[in-house]
Protein backbone atom coordinates (compact mmCIF):
# COMPACT_ATOMS: atom_id res chain seq x y z
CA UNK A 1 0.00 0.00 0.00
CA UNK A 2 2.80 2.36 0.95
CA UNK A 3 4.61 1.64 -2.31
CA UNK A 4 1.41 2.24 -4.22
CA UNK A 5 0.92 5.63 -2.53
CA UNK A 6 4.52 6.65 -3.20
CA UNK A 7 4.12 5.66 -6.83
CA UNK A 8 0.86 7.56 -7.06
CA UNK A 9 2.48 10.71 -5.61
CA UNK A 10 5.42 10.34 -8.01
CA UNK A 11 3.02 10.25 -10.97
CA UNK A 12 1.19 13.33 -9.66
CA UNK A 13 4.37 15.30 -9.08
CA UNK A 14 6.01 14.38 -12.39
CA UNK A 15 4.56 17.31 -14.39
CA UNK A 16 5.64 19.74 -11.66
CA UNK A 17 9.18 18.35 -11.57
CA UNK A 18 9.33 18.43 -15.36
CA UNK A 19 8.20 22.05 -15.31
CA UNK A 20 10.76 23.17 -12.77
CA UNK A 21 13.65 21.47 -14.59
CA UNK A 22 12.54 22.63 -18.02
CA UNK A 23 15.03 25.16 -19.32
CA UNK A 24 12.18 27.13 -20.89
CA UNK A 25 10.56 27.70 -17.47
CA UNK A 26 10.89 31.31 -16.45
CA UNK A 27 10.80 32.14 -12.75
CA UNK A 28 9.77 35.71 -13.59
CA UNK A 29 6.21 36.03 -12.33
CA UNK A 30 3.46 37.46 -14.49
CA UNK A 31 0.97 40.08 -13.43
CA UNK A 32 -2.02 37.72 -13.26
CA UNK A 33 -1.90 35.80 -10.01
CA UNK A 34 -4.31 34.18 -7.66
CA UNK A 35 -4.25 33.11 -4.07
CA UNK A 36 -6.47 31.07 -1.79
CA UNK A 37 -6.76 32.47 1.69
CA UNK A 38 -9.55 32.36 4.27
CA UNK A 39 -10.13 30.72 7.59
CA UNK A 40 -11.62 27.71 9.32
CA UNK A 41 -12.90 26.99 12.78
CA UNK A 42 -14.22 24.19 14.95
CA UNK A 43 -16.47 24.86 17.91
CA UNK A 44 -17.61 23.27 21.13
CA UNK A 45 -20.55 24.64 23.09
CA UNK A 46 -21.94 23.79 26.52
CA UNK A 47 -24.82 25.19 28.53
CA UNK A 48 -28.61 25.30 28.71
CA UNK A 49 -28.81 21.51 28.64
CA UNK A 50 -26.59 21.27 25.58
CA UNK A 51 -23.10 19.83 25.38
CA UNK A 52 -21.96 19.35 21.84
CA UNK A 53 -19.39 19.89 19.18
CA UNK A 54 -21.26 22.62 17.38
CA UNK A 55 -20.60 24.34 14.15
CA UNK A 56 -17.52 23.68 12.01
CA UNK A 57 -16.73 26.07 9.20
CA UNK A 58 -14.49 26.30 6.18
CA UNK A 59 -14.42 29.79 4.69
CA UNK A 60 -12.19 29.94 1.61
CA UNK A 61 -11.33 33.35 0.21
CA UNK A 62 -10.34 33.41 -3.45
CA UNK A 63 -8.22 36.39 -4.51
CA UNK A 64 -7.33 37.06 -8.13
CA UNK A 65 -4.97 39.91 -8.97
CA UNK A 66 -5.17 40.64 -12.65
CA UNK A 67 -3.00 43.73 -12.56
CA UNK A 68 -1.71 46.33 -10.13
CA UNK A 69 -5.10 48.02 -10.40
CA UNK A 70 -7.63 45.22 -10.86
CA UNK A 71 -8.38 42.57 -8.26
CA UNK A 72 -11.25 40.22 -7.49
CA UNK A 73 -12.09 38.66 -4.14
CA UNK A 74 -14.79 36.15 -3.27
CA UNK A 75 -15.48 34.36 -0.02
CA UNK A 76 -17.65 31.29 0.48
CA UNK A 77 -18.80 30.01 3.83
CA UNK A 78 -19.28 26.27 4.22
CA UNK A 79 -20.64 25.18 7.56
CA UNK A 80 -22.32 22.25 9.23
CA UNK A 81 -25.58 23.34 10.76
CA UNK A 82 -28.28 21.02 12.07
CA UNK A 83 -26.59 18.06 10.41
CA UNK A 84 -26.45 19.67 6.98
CA UNK A 85 -23.65 21.35 5.07
CA UNK A 86 -24.75 24.86 4.20
CA UNK A 87 -23.01 27.17 1.78
CA UNK A 88 -23.25 30.93 1.48
CA UNK A 89 -21.56 33.59 -0.60
CA UNK A 90 -20.26 36.03 2.00
CA UNK A 91 -18.94 38.52 -0.54
CA UNK A 92 -17.72 38.59 -4.12
CA UNK A 93 -16.54 41.83 -5.62
CA UNK A 94 -14.18 43.51 -8.05
CA UNK A 95 -11.75 46.23 -7.02
CA UNK A 96 -10.33 48.78 -9.41
CA UNK A 97 -7.77 51.29 -8.21
CA UNK A 98 -8.82 54.69 -9.56
CA UNK A 99 -5.95 56.64 -8.01
CA UNK A 100 -3.21 55.69 -5.53
CA UNK A 101 -5.65 56.68 -2.77
CA UNK A 102 -9.02 55.73 -4.18
CA UNK A 103 -10.52 52.39 -5.16
CA UNK A 104 -13.92 51.41 -6.48
CA UNK A 105 -15.41 48.02 -5.64
CA UNK A 106 -18.58 46.45 -6.96
CA UNK A 107 -20.43 43.22 -6.42
CA UNK A 108 -21.53 41.68 -3.16
CA UNK A 109 -19.55 43.83 -0.75
CA UNK A 110 -18.95 43.90 2.98
CA UNK A 111 -20.86 47.02 3.99
CA UNK A 112 -18.54 49.48 5.76
CA UNK A 113 -21.03 50.43 8.43
CA UNK A 114 -18.78 50.60 11.46
CA UNK A 115 -15.84 48.26 11.61
CA UNK A 116 -17.01 44.98 13.09
CA UNK A 117 -18.31 43.15 10.08
CA UNK A 118 -16.15 44.80 7.44
CA UNK A 119 -12.89 44.11 9.27
CA UNK A 120 -13.31 41.77 12.20
CA UNK A 121 -15.80 39.04 11.30
CA UNK A 122 -13.31 36.24 10.40
CA UNK A 123 -12.94 33.98 13.41
CA UNK A 124 -9.14 34.25 13.41
CA UNK A 125 -9.51 38.04 13.73
CA UNK A 126 -12.57 38.23 16.00
CA UNK A 127 -11.11 37.75 19.45
CA UNK A 128 -14.18 35.92 20.77
CA UNK A 129 -16.05 32.90 19.42
CA UNK A 130 -19.29 34.88 19.12
CA UNK A 131 -20.38 38.15 17.51
CA UNK A 132 -21.80 41.14 19.41
CA UNK A 133 -25.53 41.75 19.73
CA UNK A 134 -27.01 43.41 16.67
CA UNK A 135 -25.51 40.89 14.26
CA UNK A 136 -26.65 37.40 13.40
CA UNK A 137 -30.24 36.24 14.00
CA UNK A 138 -32.55 39.23 14.53
CA UNK A 139 -29.60 41.46 13.63
CA UNK A 140 -30.24 45.10 12.80
CA UNK A 141 -26.97 46.12 11.20
CA UNK A 142 -25.76 45.88 7.61
CA UNK A 143 -23.26 43.12 6.94
CA UNK A 144 -22.93 42.46 3.21
CA UNK A 145 -25.02 43.57 0.26
CA UNK A 146 -24.99 43.98 -3.50
CA UNK A 147 -23.73 47.37 -4.55
CA UNK A 148 -20.89 49.69 -5.42
CA UNK A 149 -18.48 51.55 -3.19
CA UNK A 150 -15.69 54.08 -3.47
CA UNK A 151 -13.12 53.76 -0.69
CA UNK A 152 -9.59 54.65 0.17
CA UNK A 153 -7.16 56.41 2.44
CA UNK A 154 -6.20 60.07 2.49
CA UNK A 155 -4.68 62.80 4.64
CA UNK A 156 -6.43 65.74 6.21
CA UNK A 157 -4.79 68.48 8.24
CA UNK A 158 -1.75 66.29 8.83
CA UNK A 159 -3.84 63.33 9.96
CA UNK A 160 -4.38 59.97 8.32
CA UNK A 161 -8.00 59.29 7.33
CA UNK A 162 -9.98 56.63 5.51
CA UNK A 163 -13.32 56.89 3.77
CA UNK A 164 -16.07 54.87 2.11
CA UNK A 165 -19.14 55.92 0.17
CA UNK A 166 -21.52 53.27 -1.12
CA UNK A 167 -24.81 52.51 -2.84
CA UNK A 168 -26.39 49.11 -2.20
CA UNK A 169 -29.74 47.44 -2.79
CA UNK A 170 -30.33 48.06 0.88
CA UNK A 171 -32.32 46.56 3.72
CA UNK A 172 -36.05 45.81 3.75
CA UNK A 173 -38.71 45.84 6.42
CA UNK A 174 -40.46 42.86 7.90
CA UNK A 175 -44.08 43.27 6.78
CA UNK A 176 -45.37 40.70 9.26
CA UNK A 177 -46.72 38.32 6.62
CA UNK A 178 -44.40 35.48 7.59
CA UNK A 179 -43.62 36.44 11.18
CA UNK A 180 -46.34 38.68 12.55
CA UNK A 181 -44.48 39.40 15.77
CA UNK A 182 -41.53 40.87 13.85
CA UNK A 183 -43.54 43.47 11.94
CA UNK A 184 -41.68 46.75 11.54
CA UNK A 185 -38.26 45.15 12.12
CA UNK A 186 -35.46 46.03 9.72
CA UNK A 187 -33.99 43.12 7.73
CA UNK A 188 -30.44 44.10 6.81
CA UNK A 189 -29.67 41.30 4.40
CA UNK A 190 -32.16 41.54 1.55
CA UNK A 191 -31.28 38.84 -0.95
CA UNK A 192 -33.75 40.28 -3.44
CA UNK A 193 -33.93 43.99 -4.25
CA UNK A 194 -37.47 44.85 -3.17
CA UNK A 195 -37.70 48.37 -4.53
CA UNK A 196 -36.04 50.94 -6.81
CA UNK A 197 -34.54 52.83 -3.90
CA UNK A 198 -30.90 52.24 -3.08
CA UNK A 199 -29.31 52.47 0.33
CA UNK A 200 -26.78 55.29 0.41
CA UNK A 201 -24.15 55.40 3.08
CA UNK A 202 -20.58 55.84 4.03
CA UNK A 203 -17.96 55.81 6.73
CA UNK A 204 -15.23 58.25 7.64
CA UNK A 205 -12.32 57.26 9.88
CA UNK A 206 -9.77 59.54 11.46
CA UNK A 207 -6.42 58.78 13.13
CA UNK A 208 -5.72 61.66 15.52
CA UNK A 209 -2.31 60.38 16.60
CA UNK A 210 0.82 60.11 14.46
CA UNK A 211 1.35 56.45 15.38
CA UNK A 212 -2.17 55.59 14.11
CA UNK A 213 -2.91 53.76 17.35
CA UNK A 214 -6.33 55.39 17.67
CA UNK A 215 -9.00 55.37 14.99
CA UNK A 216 -12.34 57.14 15.37
CA UNK A 217 -15.07 56.45 12.85
CA UNK A 218 -18.53 57.65 11.93
CA UNK A 219 -20.90 55.80 9.59
CA UNK A 220 -24.36 56.60 8.25
CA UNK A 221 -26.83 54.95 5.91
CA UNK A 222 -30.18 56.06 4.52
CA UNK A 223 -32.63 53.78 2.70
CA UNK A 224 -36.27 53.10 1.88
CA UNK A 225 -37.30 49.74 3.25
CA UNK A 226 -40.69 48.76 1.86
CA UNK A 227 -41.54 46.55 -1.09
CA UNK A 228 -42.39 48.40 -4.27
CA UNK A 229 -46.15 49.01 -4.44
CA UNK A 230 -46.74 47.93 -0.85
CA UNK A 231 -48.22 49.94 2.02
CA UNK A 232 -44.71 50.19 3.44
CA UNK A 233 -43.07 51.53 0.28
CA UNK A 234 -42.27 54.96 1.71
CA UNK A 235 -40.91 53.83 5.05
CA UNK A 236 -37.37 55.09 5.38
CA UNK A 237 -34.56 54.18 7.71
CA UNK A 238 -31.60 56.20 8.88
CA UNK A 239 -28.81 54.33 10.58
CA UNK A 240 -25.70 55.84 12.08
CA UNK A 241 -22.81 54.54 14.06
CA UNK A 242 -19.73 55.60 16.00
CA UNK A 243 -16.75 53.28 16.23
CA UNK A 244 -13.38 53.44 17.89
CA UNK A 245 -10.21 51.36 17.91
CA UNK A 246 -7.16 51.75 20.11
CA UNK A 247 -4.32 49.27 19.64
CA UNK A 248 -1.19 50.08 21.56
CA UNK A 249 1.64 48.45 23.47
CA UNK A 250 1.82 50.02 26.92
CA UNK A 251 5.05 49.22 28.80
CA UNK A 252 3.43 50.41 32.04
CA UNK A 253 0.84 47.63 31.72
CA UNK A 254 3.37 45.09 30.49
CA UNK A 255 1.38 44.31 27.39
CA UNK A 256 -0.58 45.28 24.36
CA UNK A 257 -4.14 46.49 24.68
CA UNK A 258 -6.79 46.29 22.00
CA UNK A 259 -9.75 48.49 22.87
CA UNK A 260 -12.57 48.78 20.38
CA UNK A 261 -16.27 49.32 20.18
CA UNK A 262 -19.20 50.45 18.14
CA UNK A 263 -22.37 52.35 19.04
CA UNK A 264 -25.22 51.98 16.53
CA UNK A 265 -28.59 53.71 16.11
CA UNK A 266 -31.35 52.44 13.83
CA UNK A 267 -34.19 54.93 13.24
CA UNK A 268 -37.13 53.85 11.13
CA UNK A 269 -40.05 56.11 10.11
CA UNK A 270 -42.98 55.75 12.48
CA UNK A 271 -46.29 54.39 11.31
CA UNK A 272 -48.92 52.09 12.78
CA UNK A 273 -48.74 48.41 11.91
CA UNK A 274 -51.74 46.07 11.83
CA UNK A 275 -51.29 42.40 12.59
CA UNK A 276 -53.89 39.65 12.46
CA UNK A 277 -53.53 37.68 15.68
CA UNK A 278 -55.92 34.94 16.82
CA UNK A 279 -58.50 36.12 14.31
CA UNK A 280 -58.52 39.74 15.44
CA UNK A 281 -56.73 42.73 14.04
CA UNK A 282 -54.21 44.22 16.45
CA UNK A 283 -52.61 47.62 15.89
CA UNK A 284 -49.07 48.44 16.98
CA UNK A 285 -48.00 52.07 17.00
CA UNK A 286 -44.50 52.55 18.35
CA UNK A 287 -41.46 54.78 18.04
CA UNK A 288 -39.37 52.59 15.77
CA UNK A 289 -35.92 53.31 17.15
CA UNK A 290 -33.37 50.70 18.17
CA UNK A 291 -29.82 50.89 19.37
CA UNK A 292 -27.07 48.40 19.89
CA UNK A 293 -23.47 48.62 21.00
CA UNK A 294 -20.41 46.65 21.95
CA UNK A 295 -17.38 47.56 24.03
CA UNK A 296 -14.40 45.22 23.90
CA UNK A 297 -11.03 45.18 25.61
CA UNK A 298 -8.25 42.67 25.02
CA UNK A 299 -4.89 42.43 26.74
CA UNK A 300 -1.90 40.40 25.62
CA UNK A 301 1.20 40.37 27.85
CA UNK A 302 4.63 41.26 26.52
CA UNK A 303 6.38 39.99 29.65
CA UNK A 304 7.18 36.45 30.75
CA UNK A 305 8.03 33.42 28.71
CA UNK A 306 6.63 32.55 25.28
CA UNK A 307 3.68 30.67 26.76
CA UNK A 308 2.58 33.71 28.76
CA UNK A 309 3.06 36.00 25.76
CA UNK A 310 0.83 33.76 23.67
CA UNK A 311 -2.10 34.28 26.03
CA UNK A 312 -4.72 36.96 25.55
CA UNK A 313 -7.53 38.04 27.86
CA UNK A 314 -10.66 39.44 26.25
CA UNK A 315 -13.84 40.99 27.63
CA UNK A 316 -16.82 42.29 25.70
CA UNK A 317 -20.04 43.95 26.83
CA UNK A 318 -22.83 44.24 24.32
CA UNK A 319 -26.35 45.69 24.42
CA UNK A 320 -29.41 45.71 22.20
CA UNK A 321 -32.54 47.78 22.81
CA UNK A 322 -35.51 47.52 20.48
CA UNK A 323 -38.59 49.80 20.41
CA UNK A 324 -40.98 49.97 23.33
CA UNK A 325 -44.49 48.77 22.50
CA UNK A 326 -43.24 46.84 19.45
CA UNK A 327 -44.22 43.16 19.40
CA UNK A 328 -40.48 42.46 19.37
CA UNK A 329 -39.67 44.88 22.19
CA UNK A 330 -36.66 43.70 24.17
CA UNK A 331 -33.68 44.81 26.17
CA UNK A 332 -30.68 42.57 25.92
CA UNK A 333 -27.31 42.65 27.58
CA UNK A 334 -24.44 40.28 27.02
CA UNK A 335 -21.13 39.72 28.80
CA UNK A 336 -18.45 37.61 27.15
CA UNK A 337 -15.16 36.81 28.83
CA UNK A 338 -12.50 34.91 26.96
CA UNK A 339 -9.00 33.53 27.19
CA UNK A 340 -7.12 32.90 23.95
CA UNK A 341 -3.95 30.97 23.31
CA UNK A 342 -2.20 32.06 20.11
CA UNK A 343 -0.38 29.08 18.62
CA UNK A 344 1.00 31.48 16.03
CA UNK A 345 -0.08 34.82 14.60
CA UNK A 346 -3.14 33.35 12.85
CA UNK A 347 -4.02 30.25 14.84
CA UNK A 348 -5.80 30.46 18.17
CA UNK A 349 -7.58 28.29 20.67
CA UNK A 350 -10.23 30.36 22.41
CA UNK A 351 -12.28 29.58 25.45
CA UNK A 352 -15.09 31.89 26.50
CA UNK A 353 -17.99 32.25 28.88
CA UNK A 354 -20.99 34.23 27.70
CA UNK A 355 -23.90 35.42 29.78
CA UNK A 356 -27.03 36.83 28.14
CA UNK A 357 -29.98 38.57 29.76
CA UNK A 358 -32.99 39.33 27.61
CA UNK A 359 -36.04 41.14 28.90
CA UNK A 360 -39.02 40.88 26.57
CA UNK A 361 -38.67 39.75 22.99
CA UNK A 362 -41.02 37.87 20.74
CA UNK A 363 -39.70 34.44 21.68
CA UNK A 364 -40.45 34.53 25.38
CA UNK A 365 -41.72 37.54 27.32
CA UNK A 366 -40.17 38.18 30.73
CA UNK A 367 -36.56 37.90 31.76
CA UNK A 368 -34.47 35.17 30.17
CA UNK A 369 -30.94 34.34 31.28
CA UNK A 370 -28.57 32.17 29.31
CA UNK A 371 -25.04 31.12 30.20
CA UNK A 372 -22.90 29.39 27.61
CA UNK A 373 -19.37 28.06 27.45
CA UNK A 374 -17.46 27.99 24.18
CA UNK A 375 -14.25 26.49 22.88
CA UNK A 376 -13.17 27.52 19.41
CA UNK A 377 -10.14 26.45 17.45
CA UNK A 378 -9.54 28.80 14.56
CA UNK A 379 -6.97 29.23 11.85
CA UNK A 380 -6.45 31.84 9.18
CA UNK A 381 -4.70 30.77 6.03
Amino acid at each position, binding site marked *: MRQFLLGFLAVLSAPLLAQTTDSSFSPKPGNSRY*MIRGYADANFIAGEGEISFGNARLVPLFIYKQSDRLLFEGELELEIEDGEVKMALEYANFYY*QLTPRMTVRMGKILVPFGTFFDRLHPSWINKLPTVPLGYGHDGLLPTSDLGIEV*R*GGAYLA*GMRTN*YSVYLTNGPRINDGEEEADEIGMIVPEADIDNNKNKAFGGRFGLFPFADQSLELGFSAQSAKLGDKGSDFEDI*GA*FLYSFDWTLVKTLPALGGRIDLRGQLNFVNIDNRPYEVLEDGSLETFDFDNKSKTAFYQLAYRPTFGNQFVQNLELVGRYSTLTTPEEAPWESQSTQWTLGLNYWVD*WRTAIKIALQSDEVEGGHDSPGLTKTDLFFIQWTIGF
Partner: protein
Amino acid sequence: MKKNPIILTIAFMIFMAMMIIGGCATPAHISAKSGAQLWGEACGRCHNTASPSTFSDVDWDIAVKHMQFRAQITEDEANKIVEFLKSAN
Protein backbone atom coordinates in the same frame (compact mmCIF):
# COMPACT_ATOMS: atom_id res chain seq x y z
CA MET B 1 -36.64 61.04 7.33
CA LYS B 2 -36.94 62.94 4.03
CA LYS B 3 -34.11 65.21 5.13
CA ASN B 4 -31.69 62.31 5.39
CA PRO B 5 -30.85 61.99 1.68
CA ILE B 6 -30.22 65.74 1.54
CA ILE B 7 -27.99 65.59 4.60
CA LEU B 8 -26.12 62.65 3.17
CA THR B 9 -25.73 64.32 -0.22
CA ILE B 10 -24.25 67.41 1.42
CA ALA B 11 -22.04 65.22 3.56
CA PHE B 12 -20.90 63.37 0.46
CA MET B 13 -20.04 66.61 -1.37
CA ILE B 14 -18.11 67.95 1.63
CA PHE B 15 -16.43 64.63 1.92
CA MET B 16 -15.33 64.47 -1.71
CA ALA B 17 -14.11 68.07 -1.57
CA MET B 18 -12.13 67.18 1.50
CA MET B 19 -10.61 64.21 -0.27
CA ILE B 20 -9.51 66.39 -3.17
CA ILE B 21 -8.12 69.09 -0.92
CA GLY B 22 -6.75 66.92 1.83
CA GLY B 23 -5.51 64.16 -0.41
CA CYS B 24 -2.86 66.23 -2.10
CA ALA B 25 0.18 65.87 0.09
CA THR B 26 1.42 63.20 2.44
CA PRO B 27 2.37 64.72 5.79
CA ALA B 28 6.09 64.58 6.43
CA HIS B 29 5.77 62.51 9.60
CA ILE B 30 3.89 59.83 7.64
CA SER B 31 6.10 59.83 4.54
CA ALA B 32 9.10 59.40 6.86
CA LYS B 33 7.71 56.12 8.23
CA SER B 34 9.47 52.92 7.25
CA GLY B 35 7.77 49.92 5.71
CA ALA B 36 8.24 47.99 8.96
CA GLN B 37 6.55 50.74 10.94
CA LEU B 38 3.60 50.95 8.53
CA TRP B 39 3.34 47.13 8.53
CA GLY B 40 2.99 47.15 12.32
CA GLU B 41 0.48 49.99 12.36
CA ALA B 42 -1.74 49.02 9.43
CA CYS B 43 -1.86 45.23 9.91
CA GLY B 44 -1.92 45.29 13.71
CA ARG B 45 -4.99 47.49 13.75
CA CYS B 46 -7.22 44.49 13.03
CA HIS B 47 -5.18 41.33 13.55
CA ASN B 48 -1.80 40.00 14.66
CA THR B 49 0.92 40.99 12.26
CA ALA B 50 2.03 38.30 9.85
CA SER B 51 5.58 37.06 9.91
CA PRO B 52 7.39 38.16 6.71
CA SER B 53 8.31 34.50 6.18
CA THR B 54 4.64 33.55 5.83
CA PHE B 55 4.54 34.13 2.08
CA SER B 56 6.85 34.24 -0.91
CA ASP B 57 7.60 37.50 -2.70
CA VAL B 58 5.01 36.64 -5.33
CA ASP B 59 2.33 35.93 -2.73
CA TRP B 60 3.14 39.10 -0.79
CA ASP B 61 2.44 41.11 -3.95
CA ILE B 62 -1.10 39.69 -4.00
CA ALA B 63 -1.72 39.73 -0.26
CA VAL B 64 -0.57 43.33 0.23
CA LYS B 65 -2.46 44.62 -2.83
CA HIS B 66 -5.54 42.91 -1.43
CA MET B 67 -5.00 44.50 1.97
CA GLN B 68 -4.34 47.89 0.36
CA PHE B 69 -7.95 47.79 -0.80
CA ARG B 70 -9.44 46.11 2.25
CA ALA B 71 -7.58 48.09 4.93
CA GLN B 72 -7.82 51.39 3.02
CA ILE B 73 -4.12 52.11 2.95
CA THR B 74 -2.61 54.19 0.17
CA GLU B 75 -0.56 52.77 -2.66
CA ASP B 76 2.59 54.47 -1.33
CA GLU B 77 2.09 52.86 2.08
CA ALA B 78 1.38 49.46 0.49
CA ASN B 79 4.54 49.68 -1.62
CA LYS B 80 6.64 50.40 1.45
CA ILE B 81 5.05 47.51 3.34
CA VAL B 82 5.56 45.00 0.53
CA GLU B 83 9.18 46.08 0.06
CA PHE B 84 9.80 45.52 3.76
CA LEU B 85 8.12 42.10 3.76
CA LYS B 86 10.10 40.96 0.72
CA SER B 87 13.34 42.14 2.25
CA ALA B 88 12.64 40.37 5.53
CA ASN B 89 11.19 37.04 4.39
